[in-house]
């Protein structure tokens, strides 16, 4: 519908009659280096008529008023200039208004700053870089765009968020997630409720100087999302529509064919018989007779009751009557539709941005998808000369279909098709002929496989039930930012704001009463309702003044209050009488009902001072004190601070006139940020509490956790040293930064001997250090009138080191923590190969005499440090080519080094203990008396433990992924003018089209810790879209 409307607009909108007008053209440049100034405003004096300059600094303006004589040219950071209207092209050179020349403004904590003089470390991503991305959550768009940001999209489920780590993990037990800030205030809603099209910019604050003002929660970095505002005078309407298709980004693991499987499974049964002492002949006969019974089905038909002979080979003439691909059946080509419409603009006294968005992102697995409806209204009014008020209001409703797609559970939609063998038919078949069995209506009937062994999901068929069962998650998000800013005196301003984020999440899980997993209990239904409401109220005074035209001072002081409430209700029932009913009221048996409310709050004071001298020397300092409700009153306050300085060398006389060096800034900062986030359900760990439960109708309580009333803030001490440079007319530039993040008083669950009744107690113990280097390079290797090539490269390398622990070593999962090691070092059993004599798996063991021995007993084998999951280098490379109206850009995200422990794969590597479960092709290389030099043990139905976690399954995690490719074409300007359009862009966009990686089958984007969890793999997509601006 929307598309049709746009088409109508496109065809008929432009027809208009023009009055007698004058056309003024011109070019706006910076007076210093003659570079064009895009986005400068050009206004007819005394009117609302105006335009802005294009990327080359050119503008063209229709002036209808014959009386108009003067144009006013404005650009941020430049002195305003008035020029007379003339018929010949105007060439306007604007001068710097202050000390800084036309510089990039970046959004920072509680305000904006100029990039080149800012003392902190900030990466800014512009909305333009996000707007055409085919992602449903903004977190997924951050990958590869900013140095120091490690974004891993561990799930391809539409609507899911990526995990973001900034400059490594600074905490072991407390949260390592960054703080998200929306329009200046910590954001408590759903990340995927924000429409990337509404985003003006994203700032990533990485060091102390930049994020200490959010001190209490800034320890893991801060991501500031700023939504769009109206800027240009007049009204601009932007409409965007795109359509696309998606598929799995990388192929799943290769599996053996049915013929190979039957022969291999025969061998597994035979070998087990031999181990149990049967004669070779008996073992072979037993294997032949038992094979079909063990697997539950004979895909060769009743004509071949024993399809594998006692020689272990398929008998002559045996052919499979069916071979179904469950993995294919569980997947489809996903469709994606996105449409956004925004109206933005400004009058002399107001600025507005109003938008609506629609997204329908269908998943590649059956029953998965994400639909979102967005509205946003950002309005700012200059109510009085001294008073500015504004309201940013965003609302989103989303419906996510999210079937289980992680975890080893048997109804995991991703694992299901992978773990089903092709000899189990999807639809019921005649066992003699292989023909489909049809129901009374002549339709095929799903085969729920009551005959299948348990490893092949007895009594289930997700291809069939995915259409009936429900895994729905609907969310309603409302986010409001209301503020007023009053100018009290010269440079003295007071800003107050009230900000609220509301999220209602409703999860509806339903399994039907007739088919599949829960048919025996008459189906199940679960409804989970989560309501979160958070508000922030802050009052900030700022004072900015320049003294003697040399000393520039900027002061900020304020107070902030934050409150978060989370209300949870969960009810479960089972036993539906009818198919087609799926609500709680429709089921007969109450299984579970629970609910609780948690609250958390912060009370804070903050202050900052910034000073610069002659625009050369910059100093900043900030301090913030927070009182957190997560700690006992006498330990609740934490004070965080930062100091920073920078020196803009190119402002010095000896460099000022440099012909080649445009910018050289040295900067450094140091400071402390805090972390009180012990986890989403850990709000009261300082208090002696007993958990409430009940037993058979009587109220119960019990001591579940040990409290620690001494708990206090975790502190991150951050050192950042950086150089920004730019040269050759700003054609080449970049930033090099060195950082060191030291966390102390880690909020750590110190392990206890569980015989004390508790496995751990939360304490402030231990220290971590992350040290690294980030390099950002920007270059314009080619720039001609019609063609330009721009390269952006960022690289990050860091090391993680544990510097203090409460005890010598702590094993946690597949890792072991020790002073001097990193939290990413695998501590697992070490694979020693396959015993050439027996075909059994071997692992290393520490002998009593200190030597390293070999054992085939997994439980006895010793654990060792086995490499690290931490990559050596990661980042992104963007190339952008512009030729006339064409633009091609592509981003390659890469991660080099580090290991991943592939647990997904293990399911396909059984030696035959799980009847019916497929073998990966690699299993063909299994040990036999003839094939003794192999790293795959012999097939047997007896457990050998070989698929238990060991270094055998550590794989190189390096990859490079063509994250995004964008080819766009802007329709010629001449056409636009006649159509009254500002711009029409058509584009093709691809995501994840190509991936370079080593270990086939596993999507290389896995968790930072290098472990896998049977997750929804990344998708690749191809879309076409059109953007209209008028």
């Amino acid at each position, binding site marked *: 519908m929307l598309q049709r409307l746009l088409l109508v607009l496109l065809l008929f909108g432009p027809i208009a009659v023009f009055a007698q007008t004058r056309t003024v053209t011109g070019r706006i440049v910076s007076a210093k280096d003659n570079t064009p100034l895009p986005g400068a405003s050009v206004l007819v004096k005394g009117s609302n008529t105006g335009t802005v300059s294009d990327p080359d600094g050119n503008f063209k303006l229709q002036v209808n008023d014959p009386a108009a004589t003067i144009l006013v040219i404005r650009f941020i950071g430049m002195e305003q200039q008035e020029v007379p209207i003339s018929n010949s092209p105007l060439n306007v050179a604007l001068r710097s208004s202050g000390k800084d020349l036309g510089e990039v403004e970046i959004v920072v904590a509680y305000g904006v700053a100029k990039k080149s003089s800012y003392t902190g470390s900030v990466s800014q991503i512009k909305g333009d870089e996000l707007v055409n991305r085919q992602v449903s959550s903004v977190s997924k768009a951050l990958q590869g765009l900013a140095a120091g940001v490690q974004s891993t999209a561990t799930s391809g489920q539409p609507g899911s968020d990526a995990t973001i780590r900034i400059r490594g993990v600074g905490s072991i037990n407390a949260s390592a997630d960054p703080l998200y800030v929306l329009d200046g205030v910590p954001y408590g809603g759903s990340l995927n409720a924000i429409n990337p099209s509404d985003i003006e910019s994203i700032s990533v604050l990485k060091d102390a100087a930049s994020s200490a003002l959010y001190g209490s929660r800034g320890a893991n970095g801060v991501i500031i999302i700023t939504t769009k505002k109206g800027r240009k005078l007049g009204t601009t309407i932007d409409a965007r529509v795109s359509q696309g298709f998606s598929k799995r980004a990388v192929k799943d693991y290769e599996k053996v064919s049915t013929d190979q499987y039957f022969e291999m499974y025969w061998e597994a049964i035979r070998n087990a018989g031999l181990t149990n002492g049967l004669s070779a002949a008996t073992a072979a006969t037993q294997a032949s007779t038992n094979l079909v019974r063990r697997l539950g089905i004979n895909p060769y038909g009743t004509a071949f009751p024993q399809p594998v002979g006692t020689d272990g080979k398929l008998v002559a003439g045996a052919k499979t009557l069916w071979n179904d691909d469950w993995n294919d059946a569980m997947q489809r080509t996903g469709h994606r539709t996105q449409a956004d419409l925004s109206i933005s603009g400004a009058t002399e006294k107001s600025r507005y941005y109003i938008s609506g968005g629609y997204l329908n992102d269908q998943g590649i697995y059956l029953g998965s998808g994400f639909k979102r409806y967005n509205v946003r209204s950002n309005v700012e009014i200059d109510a009085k000369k001294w008073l500015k008020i504004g309201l940013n209001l965003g609302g989103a409703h989303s419906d996510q279909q999210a079937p289980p797609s992680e975890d080893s559970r048997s109804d995991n939609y991703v694992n299901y098709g992978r773990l089903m063998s092709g000899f189990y038919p999807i639809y019921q078949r005649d066992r003699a002929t292989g023909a489909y069995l049809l129901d009374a209506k002549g339709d095929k009937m799903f085969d729920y496989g009551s005959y299948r062994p348990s490893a092949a999901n007895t009594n289930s068929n997700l291809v069939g039930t995915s259409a009936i069962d429900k895994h729905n998650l609907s969310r309603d998000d409302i986010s409001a930012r209301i503020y007023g800013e009053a100018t009290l005196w010269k440079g003295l301003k007071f800003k107050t704001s009230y900000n609220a984020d509301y999220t209602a999440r409703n999860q509806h899980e339903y399994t039907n009463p007739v088919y599949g997993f829960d048919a025996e209990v008459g189906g199940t239904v679960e409804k989970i309702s989560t309501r979160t409401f958070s508000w922030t109220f802050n009052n900030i005074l700022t004072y900015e003044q320049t003294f003697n035209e040399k000393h520039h001072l900027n002061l900020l002081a304020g107070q*902030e209050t934050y409150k978060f409430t989370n209300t949870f209700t969960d009810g479960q029932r089972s036993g539906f009488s009818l198919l087609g009913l799926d609500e709680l009221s429709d089921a007969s048996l109450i299984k579970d009902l629970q609910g609780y409310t948690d609250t958390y709050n912060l009370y804070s004071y903050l202050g900052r001072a910034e000073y610069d001298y002659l625009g050369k020397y910059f100093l900043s300092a900030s301090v913030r004190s927070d009182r957190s409700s997560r700690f006992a009153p006498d330990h609740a306050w934490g004070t965080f601070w930062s100091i920073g300085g920078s020196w803009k060398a190119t402002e010095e006389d000896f460099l000022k006139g440099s012909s080649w060096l445009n910018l050289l800034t040295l900067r450094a900062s140091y400071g402390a940020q805090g972390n009180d986030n012990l986890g989403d359900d850990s709000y009261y760990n300082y208090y002696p*509490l007993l958990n409430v439960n009940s037993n058979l109708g009587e109220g119960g309580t019990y001591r579940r956790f040990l409290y620690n009333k001494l708990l206090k803030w975790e502190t991150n001490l951050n050192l950042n040293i950086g150089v920004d440079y730019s040269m050759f007319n700003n054609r080449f530039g970049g930033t090099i930064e060195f950082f060191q993040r030291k966390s102390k008083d880690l909020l750590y669950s110190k392990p206890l001997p569980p015989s004390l009744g508790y496995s751990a107690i939360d304490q402030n113990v231990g220290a971590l250090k992350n040290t690294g280097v980030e390099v950002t390079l920007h270059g314009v290797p080619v720039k001609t009138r019609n063609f330009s090539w721009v390269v952006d490269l960022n690289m990050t390398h860091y090391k993680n080191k544990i510097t203090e622990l409460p005890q010598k070593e702590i094993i946690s999962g597949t890792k072991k923590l020790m002073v001097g090691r990193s939290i990413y070092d695998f501590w697992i059993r070490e694979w020693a190969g396959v015993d050439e004599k027996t075909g059994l798996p071997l692992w290393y063991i520490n002998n009593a005499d200190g030597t390293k021995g070999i054992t085939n007993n997994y439980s006895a084998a010793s654990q060792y440090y086995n490499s690290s999951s931490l990559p050596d280098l990661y980042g992104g490379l963007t190339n952008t080519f512009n030729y006339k109206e064409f633009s091609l850009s592509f981003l390659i995200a890469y991660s080099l080094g580090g290991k991943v422990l592939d647990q997904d794969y293990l399911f396909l590597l059984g030696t035959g203990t799980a009847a019916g479960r497929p073998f990966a092709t690699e299993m063909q290389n299994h040990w036999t008396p003839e094939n003794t030099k192999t790293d795959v043990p012999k097939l047997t139905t007896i457990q050998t433990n070989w698929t238990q976690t060991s270094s055998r399954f550590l794989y190189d995690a390096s990859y490079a992924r063509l994250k995004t490719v964008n080819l766009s074409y802007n329709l010629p300007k001449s056409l636009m003018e006649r159509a009254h359009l500002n711009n029409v862009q058509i584009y093709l966009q691809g995501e994840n089209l190509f991936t370079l990686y080593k270990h086939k089958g596993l999507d290389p984007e896995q968790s930072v810790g290098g472990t896998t969890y049977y997750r929804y793999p990344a998708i690749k997509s191809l879309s076409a879209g059109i953007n209209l601006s008028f």
Partner: protein
Amino acid sequence: MIMKKNLFIIIIAALVLGSCSKDFLETKPTNAVPDDEVFNTVDNVETVINGTWAYMFEEFFTYAVPGYKSIHLTSDAMGSDVAVTTVYGLRDSYAFTEMTDNTKNRVNAFWTILYKVIDNCNNIIARIDNATGDDTKKQRIKGQAYALRANCYLTLASYYQFNRTGTEKAVPIYLEPTSSTSVGKPKSTITQVYQQVIADLQKALPLLKDYERNPAQKWKIDLNVVNGLLARAYLYNHQWTQAISSAVAARNGYPLMSGDDYNKGFNDLNNVEWIWAHGQTPNQSNASYNFHFLDVSTPAAYYQSFMADPYFKNFFDSADARFRLFDWDTLPDQEGYLRYKKFRFRDASALVGDLVLMRSAEMYLIEAEAYTRNGNNAKGAEALNALRTARNAVPYKGGGSLLDSILIERRKELWGEGFALSDIIRTGGTVVRKPFLSYTGEDSIINVIRADGSTLEVAAQGHLTLKQPDGQPFTAYSPYYLFAIPISEVQNNPNLNN
């Protein structure tokens, strides 16, 4: 720029509004209560008994470890008579590769459950004297806390160490509530652990002497339960005469059930013979998850792991009421397995079934064993035959070892109830697992009648794991029989082996 007086008022108002009141800053949970509010009155302390019990039975560690009762299933899976199928759950315990590996979740789970219950009991015992309220109730709760703690230490003694000399180092003992500064204790000897169990139970006896529980609440510990626990403790610690008197006291009022009742699925605590049991309802059914492993005949049971070793059937004569429970499986994917349909969900649509913890039959068997070991074969045979008669089995008439007969009768009567491994550990027995083959060494073929009436010849399925993981045959006092102490304990308790 104009200075507005009003603005200052606004600013001050804003700062006042934004400043914090005490109410704002104090947050409290809604699903937990401060501990001083709990331990102040006797009525509130009773909630700790309830809550601890619920934790013990209903806490899932994984689906394979649904609470305390899972210890009993593991015990049987590691014995001689349950031929665990290869499905999820107890497969690795059955193969003796799980409980010996101190990194396994199940190893950690059992240890955690038992010691968390112990700490909660320690809190009750230490703090109830200062609570206000009815003194009789105070006595009763304290008695129940002593007995529950004793049960935990008895369980630890049963699975974590042999009791050959009594001096073997077993597990640490804690009698005081854990605080944030507590440190791990060293292992006590197996004798010390048994002494602690007996001391606790002896303390519980007088405290519970007047307590009469509601018969529907068989999970609550009363005098019979304490005596039953004492009977076990004395038997396991080779104190035969005390075992006899305690066993007799324990079964007082709980006559042996009928043969028909034995066939009703072992899922109902109203059974006359059950002394101690944990009830289940549709909205408290986590512990019932154990039936998914135990129950081999209800279609809704997920795993149906507990098949019988076909050799087990040979222990019974066909008139035995228990013999009726054997049935060759007719489900297409389980043909050839021998079902022993002792455990069945009480309600297959709600998936619930009560869990038995102690019954009179065991007390008869304790009595029989203790008499026999004490040299009184006549009384021993009498107690054994009391049970055999009730089951319509052929009574013991001499010939063969009486003690062996009693131990085999324990396997027959208590199959699936958690005594298989603890009996092997305490008696120095051996796991017996033989391949189920015909005399020619080939498959033993049986005829199965399918649901559609057709007959099918299939190979009977017996044990799959026939040897220890090291490839050696099962032997007495094999280290594979003992439960490992989890690595988290080994790592974080420097005093453990002091």
